[in-house]
């Protein structure tokens, strides 16, 4: 019996950790920025007690890492939409695509900032959606709330749409960006919205227009269609799905171990069907199906395409009835 590498089933925990870490950074960075401005103003004595508390907390947090916070903290800035880590700048490929469409030109330094994310997407597929996107953390918790409602007998969010809709959103977004001359994706792309709205709320005057849009998507997910925005409408998800079509690292079902319990298909946030080997380009390698599998029938493989459908699992009732039972009959 083939055994998957034992760490794969723990990747889902690691994924939650990275999601929380990314989200935590998005909350921490605005506070650090405010702290930096207090230092720059050289006016600790003039701060209100609340501001002093913030100053002292941030000082405690950063003191082990930086000696000159006013300038050294400039090393980490931004959100997942576009961020700076020291000399390295990383941008969302969708931001680059949107800018190219809006300005009808390409700015090379900016194109280069999307190089690492694009290469990573070519290798790991739509991993951004499951592992990094700050909106995913909220959406998955929202999805859990929806599951809780189901347990209480409230059936919400059970509609399904066509997954190809998001490619249309991507194409329309490019066209509208070109017509209006502005990067329209920034207005409808949840991670970009969430990143900047958290900053607005902490460092500026409060949540802005984007938060209204984000809450509408949350309600849509909760009441109409589970994970509906990510599955059917997200232009970023569409772009990464296209880039990740020939991803090298993908999940595969080990048919010999599988007992057809269908937990993998039930747990899949993107509504895919791992039980029937239907991962496709939209799998985000979130590894929830690996973690949930009771018989170690899910593993990672390195190959540029999914395996063709392998039929019922060999530990399942149907397979055993059709194959094993008759074989045993022949033997006797």
């Amino acid at each position: 019996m083939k055994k998957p590498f034992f760490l794969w089933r723990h990747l889902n925990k690691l994924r939650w950790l990275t999601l929380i870490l990314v989200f935590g950074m998005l909350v921490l960075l605005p506070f650090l920025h405010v702290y930096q401005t207090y230092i720059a103003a050289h006016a600790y004595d003039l701060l209100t007690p609340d501001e002093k508390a913030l100053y002292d907390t941030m000082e405690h947090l950063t003191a082990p890492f930086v000696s000159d916070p006013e300038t050294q903290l400039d090393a980490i800035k931004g959100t997942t939409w576009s961020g700076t880590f020291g000399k390295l700048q990383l941008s969302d490929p969708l931001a680059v695509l949107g800018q190219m469409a809006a300005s009808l030109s390409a700015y090379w330094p900016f194109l280069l900032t999307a190089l690492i994310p694009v290469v990573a997407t070519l290798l790991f597929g739509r991993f951004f959606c499951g592992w990094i996107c700050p909106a995913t953390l909220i959406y998955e918790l929202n999805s859990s709330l929806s599951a809780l409602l189901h347990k209480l007998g409230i059936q919400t969010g059970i509609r399904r749409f066509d997954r190809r809709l998001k490619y249309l959103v991507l194409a329309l977004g490019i066209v509208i960006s070109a017509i209006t001359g502005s990067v329209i994706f920034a207005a409808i792309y949840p991670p970009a919205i969430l990143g900047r709205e958290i900053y607005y709320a902490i460092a500026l005057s409060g949540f802005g227009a984007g938060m209204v849009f984000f809450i509408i998507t949350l309600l849509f997910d909760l009441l109409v269609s589970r994970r509906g925005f990510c599955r059917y409408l997200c232009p970023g998800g569409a772009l990464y799905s296209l880039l990740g079509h020939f991803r090298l690292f993908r999940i595969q079902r080990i048919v010999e171990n599988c007992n057809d319990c269908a937990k993998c298909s039930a747990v899949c946030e993107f509504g895919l069907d791992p039980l029937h080997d239907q991962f496709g380009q939209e799998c985000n390698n979130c590894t929830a199906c690996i973690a949930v599998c009771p018989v170690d029938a899910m593993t990672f493989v390195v190959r540029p395409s999914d395996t063709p459908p392998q039929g019922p699992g060999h530990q399942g009732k149907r397979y055993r009835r059709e194959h094993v039972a008759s074989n045993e009959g022949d033997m006797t």
Partner: protein
Amino acid sequence: MQRRNFIKQLAAVSAAASLSGGAIAASRTQRRFLRPPGALPETDFTAVCIGCGQCGEICPNRCIRYFGMENGLTSLATPYIIPREKGCILCMKCGQVCPSGAIQPIERSVEALTSKVSMGRAVVDRHLCLSWQGKTCGVCYRACPLQDLAIRVQRLEQPIIMDACIGCGLCERSCIQMPQAIRILPDQERTLT
């Protein structure tokens, strides 16, 4: 059946998109605002800026704010400065951090600033200005980072704006008159040479 559903949903999304396209042509705000130093001309700026917010996050003066929907959808999440509330201290960090090229990096030297930055130009209202109305003030002159290049005062502290003014807004911020006697007229056609 699945195909028919797809076409139905396709029609719904197209309708929503065309509606939002109409909303984009919304009216512009009447508010007078500046773009950060080194920003591209206005139409290029909204096309190139991705709204990542790093310029505001690195600004040590916290003078950079962001548009919501009040200036139309094309300006959504783009940075602006209201000089009366907080002027730009010309640290030029925003141009260094901007990944998209909407704010160009400019060296922090007097030559580079006066030749490349063009946020706007200060205008003095002599009917409001204390120094021009028989008292002496001179606060704007003292606030200016480019004294005697961008602004000079004659006797009795009467301010006169000169061609090197780049519109940082520190004079407008500092003006003790209410309403302010010195204002920045934004340069919507600002060019980078």
